[in-house]
């Protein structure tokens, strides 16, 4: 398994175009802090909302980079 933590966003995008699932996971993990910060209800993080946001983000990424796949 290759370590993706030091790879730039540009390289991650290139790998994502080549259907690299690990790059997708890395992008999700890099944006996880932002997802949690946006999933707050009355100042507290709601894990259900965060999970829903993760799923929506994942689908958006898949549709952007792998448009031919059906989800």
């Amino acid at each position, binding site marked *: 398994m290759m370590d993706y933590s030091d790879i*730039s*966003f*540009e390289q991650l*995008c290139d790998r994502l175009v080549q259907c690299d699932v690990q790059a997708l996971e890395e*992008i999700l993990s890099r*944006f996880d802090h*932002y*997802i949690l910060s*946006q*999933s707050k*209800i*009355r100042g507290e993080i*709601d894990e*259900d*909302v965060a999970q*829903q*946001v993760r799923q*929506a*983000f994942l689908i*958006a*990424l898949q549709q*952007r980079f792998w448009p031919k796949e059906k989800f």
Partner: protein
Amino acid sequence: MLCVSLFRLNLRFLKWKWSGLKEVKNLDNTKSFIAWCKSVIRHAALNAIRDHKRYRERMLVHDVDMFHGSIVEWTSRDTFPDQREWAWMFELLSGRERIIIKLLYIHGYSQRETACLLHTTQQKISIAHRHAIETLREAWLG
């Protein structure tokens, strides 16, 4: 000789300029990709929070309907007031007023706590509560 060196210099300059442009373009792409990701997350979070709020309100209305059913059962054992009147009176209240009545009288929350639960102000709860009581009283007294 001078001409050739000038040409080489020019080529080098063009090469440097082109690589710089390429870098700027890549940087722009990366920036726009990050911005796109952030906007997707922001919109998804707004949608999820809205759905969550709707779901909670729907569950509260469902609870109130269950509560209404238990009241009807309770009243059917007593002579006052009768089942039809309770049902009719509760139908006069809006869904939000039913929720407020339930939270205040069954769960025993204060108006401020009810306001926190429904994401509104205590004044609005007070107004809705008073309106609900007035509606029930008018309905009961005819």
